[in-house]
């Protein structure tokens, strides 16, 4: 047991830090990468990932043959920690890097790996994820999009929802039913769909924050070549599980660093904001809540290390990742609730006399409502923990 960096890890951490110091344009982050509607930032963010790729950082743990660095997972985790610490924007191609790419590496043919992987790293091709549907959210197996063979093509029809980046994506990992008579989870196939195909329509979906991070997608008679199946026909559920296991990978290290930064900022706020005429930080109830957030956010950091040690020792990501996501999402809601409460009645405004901090907290406060829903609702995560970690019988 040793929580220090090994000499190799420390050297890598320094290398990342130095590179970010030299290559991160602070002014550009303020003006172009972190504000404004996402669509206006895409080009800048794409260029930022390109720069990361040139520096050799886009795929730290990806194999060298696909353009990665071939480094151990621990270094990938350190990279995300340092990115978060320096408040660098995350790579834009998050679905490609975290979900599509790892799934193609496991289930793809060699020609598919050659075709797709390097362009994921460079962000030349952005990916989106076509899993959820209006009638198939947590119950993903209930999806109804269909793919019917016609010559050398499958003809896809259906509607997808909550699709991040769909409006700028070149490719979509897409689940469609290919055998309507098979049991729910059997007749599904995993496709790689070109978003420029005729019949693909993308409409932005505005969230309660007012911004549109997500989209809905309508697929009408979209023709997809047969060779764009990933894995085997009707084996899409198994392939999708690889994607979803990777969804909660080393990116969690960035989230836990961000949470720590947010808590530090909240503590500073509590020192300046008053409650009954005294600094809020002196209020015993506020102190208890801050301390409890520390317990949870520190647990996130440690759970990340524990889960990673398990992966490194056993080779497979365990369902422990579900614990980390559950903890993170529920803690972020509590943290942003507290931040807004600290403002008192001014917390009812979204911009109090130009207080930029309140503006950011309010956005985070609203945005964190989605944390317990996206990438597996807290209820689904508890099902996973109950069934796969504790071995309780399947719920009905």
């Amino acid at each position, binding site marked *: 047991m040793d*929580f220090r960096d090994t000499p190799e890890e420390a050297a890598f951490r320094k290398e990342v830090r130095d590179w970010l110091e030299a290559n991160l344009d602070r002014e550009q982050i303020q003006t172009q990468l972190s504000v404004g509607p996402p669509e206006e930032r895409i080009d800048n963010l794409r260029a930022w990932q390109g720069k990361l790729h040139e520096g050799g950082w886009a795929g730290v743990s990806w194999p060298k043959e696909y353009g990665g660095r071939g480094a151990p997972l621990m270094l990938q985790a350190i990279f995300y920690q340092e990115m978060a610490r320096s408040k660098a924007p995350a790579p834009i191609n998050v679905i490609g890097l975290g979900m599509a790419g790892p799934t193609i590496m496991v289930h793809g043919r060699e020609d598919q790996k050659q075709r797709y992987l390097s362009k994921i790293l460079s962000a030349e091709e952005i990916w989106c994820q076509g899993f959820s549907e209006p009638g198939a959210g947590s119950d993903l197996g209930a999806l109804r999009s269909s793919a019917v063979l016609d010559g050398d093509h499958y003809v896809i029809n259906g509607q997808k929802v909550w699709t991040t980046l769909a409006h700028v994506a070149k490719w979509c990992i897409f689940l469609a039913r290919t055998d309507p008579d098979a049991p729910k989870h059997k007749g599904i196939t995993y496709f790689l769909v070109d978003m420029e195909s005729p019949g693909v329509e993308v409409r932005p979906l505005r969230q309660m924050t007012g911004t549109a991070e997500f989209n809905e997608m309508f697929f009408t008679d979209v023709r997809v070549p047969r060779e764009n199946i990933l894995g085997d026909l009707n084996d899409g559920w198994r392939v999708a599980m690889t994607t979803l296991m990777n969804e909660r990978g080393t990116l969690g290290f960035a989230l836990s660093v961000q949470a720590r930064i947010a808590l530090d900022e909240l503590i500073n706020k509590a020192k300046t904001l008053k409650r009954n005429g005294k600094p809020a930080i002196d209020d015993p109830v506020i102190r208890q809540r801050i301390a409890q957030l520390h317990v949870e956010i520190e647990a996130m950091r440690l759970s990340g290390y524990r889960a990673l040690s398990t992966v490194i020792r056993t080779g497979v990501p365990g369902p422990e990742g579900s*614990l980390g996501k559950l903890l993170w999402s529920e803690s972020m809601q509590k943290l942003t609730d507290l931040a807004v409460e600290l403002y008192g009645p001014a917390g009812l405004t979204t911009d109090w006399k130009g207080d930029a901090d309140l503006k950011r907290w309010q956005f985070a406060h609203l945005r964190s409502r989605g944390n317990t829903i996206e990438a597996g609702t807290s209820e689904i995560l508890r099902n996973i923990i109950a069934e796969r970690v504790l071995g309780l019988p399947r719920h009905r």
Partner: protein
Amino acid sequence: MDFGFSDDQEALRQSAREVLTDKAGPAVYRTAMDSKTGTDEALWKTIGDLGWAGVAIDEAHGGLGLGLIELVILMEETGRALAPVPFFSTVALAGQLLEQTSGGGRDEALRAIASGGRATAALGQKDGRYDAAGVSVKAARTENGWKFSGTASLVPEAHLADLIVVVARTTRARNPEEGLSLFLVPATALKSKPKPQPSLDGTRRLADVKLGGVQVPADSLLGQEGSAWPLVARALDRTAVLLSAEAVGVATATLERAVAYARERMQFDRAIGSFQAISHRCADMLLVTETARSHVYYAAWALEEGAPDARLAAATAKAAASDAARIVANGSIQVHGGIGFTWEHEMHLFFRRAKFCELFLGDASLWRERVATALAS
């Protein structure tokens, strides 16, 4: 970075679990609980023979020379098995205080512990306080030693201990953290044998130690006169982490039983564990248990390595483990339904030990306040 145990540490855990599965467990606990002393002499002898009490004591004093991580493993396992022995008071309380000090009978006392002696510590606190201002026992110099006044209350296993480490005020000071000293008091020096209070955890009894008029020789003083508090505070951080480790062990075993029951118990023609009201509560219990476990391991490592956040990590661990102990003990009785509420069922035995782990040395709120103090400074 490696968040895992060495092969030797895993082997220690394995052997501890095997021994305790065989010689401890709820049935053994129940027998001890109903006994006059609340302890299992045979189990203590076994543990002594295995050298567990000396795991962290250096080899020069008859120990194995290992560290806090190994003690964490043993505390977790004794917690899992509800072992009715004074391991906590001897090793985690008296042992840690002795480790931090020097002089007096310190070396001899460590040797005694390593070879099976039983010990405890009288923190001298009143009103459940564990800070310096809460120390109510006093000691004054006499011609050839020291004379105590006052009573130390709520001392665990004082009726079993051969040796008692006593925290006493030797000088009145404006700053309560000054003027405190540590003493080693053999049970034979007491005027009356400590009589335990009827205790919620019948195998971890709490007693008043009446020190009024008790006299000890000059060399009973441990370390420097009047400057004991910093080392007491340091020792108690370690004690708190070890007690948290026990809490995690208790919570783990309790939750395992609740989950096993939820798999088997049929109602409405299905296992109750298939109801999300039950399974989600179990998932939450797992979350608090595993969270506490991570905190305990990290805190033990940080204390051992002298990491800058070691004190904060210890406070975080005790806060997390105190909550986990309560949440899991309560939830597991609920999952069991009526049977879990009966005297015959073992759930309340786990509940009792969990409550000791939760409240002794201060509950979650008290340690969270320490976390807040560290964060706000």
